[in-house]
């Protein structure tokens, strides 16, 4: 059985420049409640507590979005993403428990899992469902990936989710990593695609073929950079092989809702997303790259390339301006 994890209302918030409203969350969740997904994730694109000048101020705060979702979801679980360094236990996780969140995903850059120890231990001590999320999971070798995943399991995570935050993987990369994790750790394995190279759905299918049991996707692929794997496309693929797959109707209804309501935010694979994906740069930087490239009269490609060279990680948005300055002074 696959648990489909709908990130439209979290990762999609990146694509919407954090303009998601409680009204839309309510409308979406009403349909999602019967779509057949296991959980719906809601909040700021960088997770709860991340609204900031650095990565983007949200129009509506996380609590308003979460409460709108909570009202409509009962069968389907309500999830959040939280990144230590942005979100804290006291300010964000404790209130999230009170807001009725069911699934807590704690994310760190793939090499920095130890910053999440306290948060995961706290939540598992509160008997909550906790997933450890390895962001930018391409940025480490397989051996390192396995050892970081083991730490997450030891802290008490019931699943380890590989995020391809840069949209860097092709299907064989996913197969290699999901296999390695399945072999070495006892907890569930999940996969979260980004579509920078145009292979997001194929990557999600590769994760399924290699026995990942949690699969992330979003309606119309609404998500950071070139977007995620489109959930409706994953479902239609999955249905060809598995008779127990959820029916397509509601997924199409959700995809149509997103497509008609927010045509201006729909992500796509572009020359610049392929370049950033191939260079392994975090997809979420796209709005800042667009803005700063225009301000300095630089090409986005040059900026992406230099950011790839300096290997920025998510949360270093303020470096983009400095890099643009350096490029101008060359």
């Amino acid at each position, binding site marked *: 059985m696959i648990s489909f994890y709908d990130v439209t209302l979290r990762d999609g918030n990146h694509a919407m420049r954090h303009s998601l409203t409680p009204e839309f969350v309510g409308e979406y969740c009403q349909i999602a409640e019967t779509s057949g997904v296991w959980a719906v994730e809601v909040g700021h694109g960088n997770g709860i507590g991340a609204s900031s000048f650095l990565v983007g101020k949200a129009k509506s705060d996380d609590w308003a979005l979460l409460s709108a979702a909570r009202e409509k979801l009962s069968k389907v679980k309500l999830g959040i993403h939280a990144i230590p360094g942005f979100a804290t236990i006291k300010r964000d996780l404790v209130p999230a428990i009170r807001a009725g969140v069911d699934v807590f995903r704690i994310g760190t850059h793939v090499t920095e899992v130890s910053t999440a120890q306290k948060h995961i231990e706290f939540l598992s001590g509160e008997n909550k469902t906790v997933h450890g999320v390895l962001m930018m999971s391409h940025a480490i070798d397989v051996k390192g990936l396995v050892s970081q995943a083991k730490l997450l399991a030891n802290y008490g995570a019931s699943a380890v989710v590989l995020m391809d935050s840069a949209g860097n993987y092709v299907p064989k990369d996913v197969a290699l990593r999901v296999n390695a994790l399945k072999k070495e750790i006892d907890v569930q394995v999940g996969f979260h695609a980004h579509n920078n190279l145009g292979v997001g759905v194929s990557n999600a299918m590769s994760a399924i073929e290699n026995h990942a049991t949690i699969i992330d996707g979003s309606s119309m692929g609404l998500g950071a950079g070139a977007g995620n794997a489109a959930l409706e496309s994953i479902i239609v693929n999955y249905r060809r092989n598995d008779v127990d797959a959820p029916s397509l109707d509601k997924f199409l209804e959700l995809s149509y809702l997103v497509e008609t309501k927010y045509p201006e935010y729909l992500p796509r694979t572009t020359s610049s997303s392929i370049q950033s994906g191939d260079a392994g740069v975090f997809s979420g930087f796209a709005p800042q790259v667009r803005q700063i490239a225009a301000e300095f009269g630089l090409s986005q490609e040059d900026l992406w390339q230099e950011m790839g060279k300096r290997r920025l990680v998510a949360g270093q948005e*303020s470096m983009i*301006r400095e890099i643009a*300055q350096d490029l101008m002074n060359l």
Partner: protein
Amino acid sequence: MSNPRIRVAVIGTGNIGTDLCERLLKDPKFEVVAFVGRRASSSGLLHMRGRLPNLLEGGVKDLDPLWSEIDGIFDATSASAHLEHWTIAQKQRKWVIDLTPSRVGKPLVPVLIDKAPSMRVSPEYVANYSMVTCGGQSSAPIIYAITKHAKLVEEVEISSSIASLSAGPATRKNIDEYIDSTEKMAMLLTGCSTVKSILVLNPVDPPVLMRTTVHVRAANFDLVQILEESRDLVSKVKNYVPGYDLVVEPHVAGSGQISATVKVLGSGYFLPQYSGNLDIINAAAVETAKQHVHLSRRAREKITT
């Protein structure tokens, strides 16, 4: 007549304490009387062997026979141990510079002494100063420069990125405390209650240098004055942190918003140069001790003459 040297003990023989010893040994204003750890095998004590008069391995109680030779202590242990050390220091009538995240002492950023009302040095000889966090030390001068020339400050944000290698197990485990402590300093400094602090670790090899970006939203501000003030403060910070630089000058970053970024290259006493985040804390500790002792000596001279 020249001032007598400031006689100190450094407690905590980890990387921070060891770097602090190296730094103090090169500073003619100081005399390191003792370096205090809890294990004879600690790498810090081994590193300092033969270079300091008292290398103590039994913890702070080993200082008992030495208190009369010590003016003050630097505490580079842990938040919980600091409480005990502060109790002892008060009994012995010594000042303390706290490099732990205990939040017991008064948050202090040396360059703002005599500038910001919340950053005055105590006229009392027995005092406890907290060095806050690396994000706090690196952002405070810029926050001060911006908010001094802004009206109705609505929001202050501090985001720092540091090299993963420079973040030890304690920093990693206490990332929430780091955030809280940095935010409290910013509130104290500006009186603004909407503050946010963010910390990001980057594992890239070669290691990145620490960057701190300050973002302030206010009803209005004077950019020319802010530029002048921040350049001036950065040059003053450079007196004790030579590797502190303004890499993105204050600029308008959206309506009602000002932003600026600093970079910190470490001095490389014992810690590698990419550990600017640790360097700035140690540099601030030494500078704070100097200023405190200077002021309390002056106060005493006034009483005696």
